[in-house]
């Protein structure tokens, strides 16, 4: 009965997190995964999600599923920590779960995959099973590569054979490289993204990484987990931790904070003295975690694409939506018709034009301006 009550309570928590994330509408990266737009991540998860993209409720169903997976991962934490309830609570109220569970992003799924990997290691799962899971993780998101040190150590500690390291670590990685070669726009997109924030100083990057490390474990777990992995000399965790730090210092996307989370949990479990401290720190961490939620409320503002959706539904099926200015994939997700970049010669076939940049001087004589829209929008009557 107690177990059922906990299950029910966790699911309610997951529903709440999914609901909060849904308030802001679909974001550009989320739209990519929901519609299987192939850049930059490999296809394992986005392909599966796109099978259901005709469903009206697709977005909220996926949010609930992702949030439930993140929240119910606490059972793995409890299992690994020999039923240390406090550590499970640290997982549930950490910034990583609070801010990312319920988003349709691959970063929390990667974090979850790493947690499963750690759990498989603790259960001495057969190496081929670990290999299958590692291959699945790599083909879900490129950032899974950051956790290669964990897999490497799991294989090496078990067999101490170079052939097994090649079979279970190098070959899956090689296949990911092969996949990348077959999708040339992926390396091109990586080169474009690598130019982001090139002007940032080393200290800016350090502070940004420190901020995400603090958010990922809501400070308390961040400190305990990092201390724990160093104290226990858990080289797999330490190696991956350094990779994640380096990756975040270069990319600086907030949603990567969650990548720290399984490593921090692993660090606490690896060091028994840190495990004892978790009992005292849960309340402090919960407070810190919910303070981060204050930051999160700014993300809840509805996207302009979601606000424009009621007007877009009036467009005839054979017409298209033209957008002037840089736009995200959320427009493709919300629009019932084809979306193209604005070109003067395409206006005759357009059912609507959205001006994210100024449309001053454009000839919209056949279109009517929508006055009560949050973005400048013209519709064919």
């Amino acid at each position, binding site marked *: 009965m107690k177990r059922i009550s906990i299950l029910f309570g966790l699911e309610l928590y997951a529903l709440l997190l999914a609901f909060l994330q849904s308030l802001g509408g679909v974001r550009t990266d989320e739209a*990519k995964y929901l519609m299987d*737009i*192939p850049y930059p991540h490999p296809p394992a998860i986005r392909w599966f999600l796109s099978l259901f993209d005709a469903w009206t409720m697709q977005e909220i169903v996926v949010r609930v599923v992702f949030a439930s997976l993140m929240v119910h991962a606490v059972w793995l934490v409890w299992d690994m920590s020999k039923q240390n309830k406090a550590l499970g609570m640290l997982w549930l109220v950490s910034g990583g779960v609070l801010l990312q569970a319920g988003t349709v992003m691959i970063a929390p799924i990667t974090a979850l995959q790493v947690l499963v990997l750690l759990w498989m290691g603790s259960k001495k799962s057969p190496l*081929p099973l670990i290999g299958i899971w590692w291959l699945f993780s790599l083909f879900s998101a490129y950032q899974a590569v950051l956790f290669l040190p964990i897999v490497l150590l799991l294989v090496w500690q078990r067999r101490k054979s170079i052939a097994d390291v090649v079979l279970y670590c190098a070959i899956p990685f090689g*296949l990911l490289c092969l*996949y990348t070669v*077959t999708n*040339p726009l992926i390396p091109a997109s990586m080169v474009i993204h690598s130019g982001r924030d090139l002007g940032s100083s080393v200290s800016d990057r350090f502070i940004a990484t420190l901020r995400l490390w603090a958010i990922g474990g809501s400070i308390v777990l961040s400190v305990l987990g990092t201390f724990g992995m160093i104290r226990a000399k858990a080289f797999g965790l330490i190696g991956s931790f350094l990779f994640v730090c380096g990756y975040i210092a270069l990319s600086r996307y907030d949603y990567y904070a969650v990548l720290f989370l399984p490593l921090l949990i692993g660090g606490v479990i690896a060091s028994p003295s840190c495990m004892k401290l978790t009992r005292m720190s849960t309340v402090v961490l919960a407070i810190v975690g919910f303070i981060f939620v204050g930051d999160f409320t700014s993300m809840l503002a509805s996207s302009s694409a979601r606000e424009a959706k009621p007007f877009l539904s009036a467009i005839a099926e054979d017409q298209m939506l033209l957008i002037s200015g840089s736009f995200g994939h959320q427009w493709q997700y919300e629009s019932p018709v*084809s979306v*193209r970049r604005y070109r003067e010669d395409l206006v005759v076939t357009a059912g609507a034009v959205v001006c994210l940049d100024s449309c001053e001087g454009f000839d919209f004589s056949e279109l009517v301006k929508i006055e009560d829209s949050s973005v400048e929008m013209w519709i064919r009557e």
Partner: protein
Amino acid sequence: MYFKSYIALLAIVVVLLVPRAWDLRLLYIDADVRSKVEVLLREESERNGWVLSDLSIVSLTTTTARLCYREHRRGEDPISCFDIEL
């Protein structure tokens, strides 16, 4: 059983990817083809107002590129493929 499943999975991925990599080999071994394809993609995307991520290169020869335009939207995605001289 796990070992056989793992090897089978690796083999499936190889069988799926190698033919496609072979079709695109010129992109990586011929700098001239690579630069022409890059220009071509940008021109096609610009001319039609297409989002670049909706375009994919299917195969290449030294004279022709086969591109596919997949319009990502809710439900079935319309796909059209065409050959273009480099």
